[in-house]
Every structure is written in C-alpha cells, then in structure tokens.
C-alpha cells in the first residue's frame, strides 16, 4: 500500500507540486495523467525518494524520506522517462544491473537467467548481445523496463507487495509494444504487486488503469476510477482541449476522442 498525504514539493524555491493526496493499492494500476508541466514527474520523483517533500508518503508502512536506498530498492523499482548511458554496455549487462540489489525475489539459482526472461517479456529476445547505444529509442526504453522487472521480479516478497513506478513507459513505443508493456504492468498487479504509472494516452489509461489521478498545475484535479474521472468537462478544463468521451460498445471502458484546442 502506498499512501501520500498532503504532499508538496519545491524545486529551487518554487512550489511545483502542492497538497497531493494519492493512493496505490497492491493488485491495481494507478495512473497519473495531466498536461505537460503539471507536476506528474516531480510527484513520482518524490515517491521514488529523489526529491525532498513536505507532507507524508508511506510505502508498506515506511516513510519514503526515512528509507535508505538499499531498503527502498527492495520495495519498488523505477523506470525513468529517459536514461542516458555513459559507457558502451551490452543489453545483457544493462538488464543485469537490475539484480545488483540482490532482492529480485526469484528462486535461488534463477537469477542468472532473469535478464534473458525479462528481455523475452518485453519482446526483445535475441537482443542480449547488442550494444545498448545502437538500439532505437523504443528498444532502449524496453531494455530499461527489462532491467526494472529484474529488480522486483517477484511482485510480492516476504508477504509484502512491491511496486513498479513507471514514468511514461510507452511514450516512444509503437501500438503493439504499448499493449505488451501495459499487459506486463497489469500482470504484475494481478500477481499481487502495485503499479504507479504516468501516462499521456488517455485511451490507454482508460483501458488499463484501475484508478486515475489527474494533475493540473501541481494539484490534484480529480481522482477515481476511469469512468468516474473521464468526463468531457474535466478534460476540457485540465487539458485545454475539447474531447468527446464515449463508452466502447463492449463493456464499460471509456474512450477519449480529441476534437479541438480550446481557444
């Protein structure tokens, strides 16, 4: 369980995020959406322990700011928006870095094969020997996800749920791989873990998220299930766009069709 109360973050004296209440439960995908600059990444960084914050963020009963990196690494793995690499590592070597904390949760003796299995999950079989820097942006993003998956291979460890923090995990992927990655997130949640992800695609959000947090100018504009949150009026207010929200014929999944920019 992740519970954030009244979280504010200041960067260089400027308040970027204020008064956020947030909750992510094991078994669920919690999506954070909002326009550029609304504070999504800053909030996720506070959640990841990268930035100091006011208020309280508790993961599995532990306050984030009081958790040492090595302990936090056992509770959650973080996929950043982009990763720059300093030296010519192979894909295999990058993915294996996910194991350095030593708490993958895989059975003894399985760790050696985890990179390969993680790469297969993200549809990069046969890429282990390639140099990371030679891959396309989308492939690099999936390599990083494979690394993140190795770190928290078992969604539950010692009876406690673990979490994936994903910052725009599908931003540079084609449609097929968007679905593959979101399915991985859903599977992780189904097996008892929790997922917190920033997304831009509202339709993907509607399809996969159990709970949506809409951020607007550093504050929370709305929170709830997709059908409760996604409405014409809220979206127009937050995104400055006219959109049509409908419901797919098969089931209760809403869809969002962009119409025009609000002048």
């Amino acid at each position, binding site marked *: 369980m992740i519970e954030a109360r009244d979280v504010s973050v200041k960067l260089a004296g400027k308040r970027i995020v204020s008064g956020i209440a947030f909750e992510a439960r094991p078994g669920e995908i919690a999506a954070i959406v909002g326009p550029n600059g609304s504070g999504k990444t800053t909030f996720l960084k506070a959640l990841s*322990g*990268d930035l100091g914050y006011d208020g309280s963020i508790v993961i599995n009963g532990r306050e984030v700011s009081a958790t040492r*990196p090595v302990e*936090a690494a056992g509770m959650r*793995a973080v996929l950043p928006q982009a990763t720059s690499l300093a*030296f010519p*590592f192979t894909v295999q070597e990058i993915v*294996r870095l996910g194991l350095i*904390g030593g708490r993958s949760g895989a059975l003894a003796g399985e760790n050696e094969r985890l990179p390969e299995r993680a790469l297969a999950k993200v549809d990069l079989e046969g890429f282990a*020997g390639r140099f990371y820097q030679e891959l396309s942006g989308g492939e690099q993003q999936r390599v990083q996800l494979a690394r993140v998956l190795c770190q928290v291979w078992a969604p539950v460890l010692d009876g406690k749920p673990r979490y994936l923090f994903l910052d725009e995990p599908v931003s540079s992927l084609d449609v097929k791989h968007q679905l593959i990655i979101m399915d991985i997130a859903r599977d992780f949640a189904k097996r008892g873990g929790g997922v917190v992800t920033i997304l831009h695609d509202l339709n993907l959000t509607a399809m996969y998220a159990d709970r949506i947090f809409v951020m607007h100018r550093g504050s929370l504009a709305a929170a709830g299930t997709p059908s409760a949150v996604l409405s014409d009026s809220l979206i127009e207010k937050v995104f400055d766009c006219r959109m049509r929200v409908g419901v797919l014929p098969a089931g209760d999944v809403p869809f969002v069709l962009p119409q025009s920019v609000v002048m």
Partner: protein
Amino acid sequence: MVDHSIAGPSGLMVRKAAGDRSARARLAIVLLAVLLVAVALFSLTAGASDASAVDALRDWFSGPDAADRVLSARDRIIIYDIRLPRVVLGALIGAALAVSGAVMQGLFRNPLADPGIVGVSAGAGLGAVSVIVLGGTALAPFTMLLGSMALPLAAFVGGLVTTLILYQVATRQGRTSVATMLLAGIALSALAMALTGVLIYMADDRQLRDLTFWQLGSLAGATWTKIGTAGPVMLIALVAMPFFARGLNALSLGEATASHLGIQVQKLKYIAIAGVSAAVGASVAVSGGIGFVGIVVPHLLRLTIGPDNRYLLPASALLGATLLILADTVSRTIVAPAELPIGIITATVGGPFFLWILLRKRGVIDL
C-alpha cells in the same frame, strides 16, 4: 561478437548468455597478471648489469647462505636496491593512476575524465611543491609534525580540494557537462600551476634542483623509504576501489537510477573522490606528474572487456602497472647511461593516443 559458450569444468559446454563479457574479462585479467610478472622480470634484468632473469629468480629463492647465491654482490645491489624499488614503485604508481582514471571516468560518467587532464594532478603538485619550498619556513610545523608523510599528505590535500571544486562546478543535479568539466579542469590546472610558479620563483637553488626533477616525473629517485611512505596510501586506495565497482556500474545509468537500484550515491561519490585524491596525491608526491596513464589504460580495456567496473578496475591496475614499468625501462635504457624522464615517454605515447580517442568519439562527444 561474443562467445556464446565457454568450456565448463568437465569439458562440457556451459551455455553462456549473449552479451555477457565476464568470462572474457576474467581471462584478460589472468593474462594481464602474467604479462605484469613477465614485464617486471624483464625490467629487473634490463640495463647495464648482465644478470639474466633466470639468475635473478634463482638468487631470490636461494638459501640464506652466501655461498649459494647466484648473483655477484654488485648485481645484487643493482637488482635489489636500485631496480626492484623502481619496478615496485612503477607498478604501484601505474596501478594507482590507471585505477584513479577509471574511477573518475565512472564518477563523472565520462570517458574523458582523467586526473592529469582535469587538474587533479596539478592540484596535488601544488600541494607537494608547497611542502618542498615552504617546508622549512611557513609550513615548518606541518612538516615537523608529519615528517616524511608531509609531502604525500600535502599532495593528497591538493588533489582532494581540486577534485571537490571540479565536481561542484561541473555537476548539476547528477549530470556532468563534458564542456564544463574540461574547461573547469583547464582553469583549475592553470591556477594551480600559477601558484606553483610563484612558489618556484621563491625557491632557492637546492630546492630548484629537487623541483625540476620532480616536475618532469621520474622514478629515478625510487627507494624503499619512498615506497614505505607513499606505498601504503596507494595500496589502501587500490584495495578499496574494487568495493565500489558495483556502485560505479549503477552510476553509469545516472545518479537517480543508481539510487533506485539501492546504491548510496552520495557516500559512493565521497569515497571515490577521496580514493582518487589519495592515490593521485601519493603518486604525484613520489614521482611528479605522469600523464595519460589514467585515460589510455581504461579506454583500451573498455574496448576489449567492456565497461563493467568489477573487471575494469583490476584490469586497469594490472595494465597500468605493466605500462608504467615498461615506460620506466625505456626511460632508463633508451639514452643510457643518461635517463629520460618517464613523463616524457608517457606523454609521447599517450598524447597521440588521446587525439585518437577524440577523433573516434567525435560523433559521440560533442563539445
């Protein structure tokens, strides 16, 4: 590209994951260790005395009885009291400089970081020159208190201060700008050298002779006493560095990601900076500025065994030691009976190599 299989213990083929270069790296480390021993033996026996490597080895393992000895008394002095300290000191300094280079590159996340290029050696030099020139006057309490440790310690402090300033200037929110790092290094080098110049201007004739020799970089002054003072510092730094290889690996993904993986990044940075300053300071104190070992060695190794610091650091130590012993052997034999300062040899070989790196990386590193 990479071997997909290696021979297992019983001759069975053990499947090895593609892209895993650790088997190759381990093999390279063994080969480099053998090479180091061979080069050290060669260096012990190369020169005016004609004792062979075999004789030297047999003598080394001969009994305490003088009658069993293989070497003449003269050869024993040449080998044990003149050449052996040079070989040992050369190995220590080469290892210290190469490992320091590799660690700095990991810390700055940049293959161009090198103690010599970014001013750490110049800062350490300033510390050392201060002790040589002011040791009898302004710094007298310091030198009296510390004795022979004063010089290496001052060099360490000089290197540490330079590294800290450099890191503060060049790194913002965990990202190091290459341009800022190199430019700050140039500024710090210039400043340290200017202050060194002032000190040299103040020096008397005897101090000047010490300084000139020291500045060119040479192992000619190697004695067991010097090894006794600077050696432990370098050894501690060398032994400590492999312990943060894992952390440096994680750091190559960026500071935030390293922290997410469970690395205490701030602590790692402080220890790495202290280790580099100690190792560079100690080697500058005993041998002056020897350039390019720190950038050439790790770069060559990354090309063959990859950037994994668990293997890169020990391999750098071995290759750095080997190259410096070799350079020293050349420096004392090429114009025998005179000597060429070793700094000239490493710069002659290292300079063009550095240019080659820049040419190769032109597309990648855009200043």
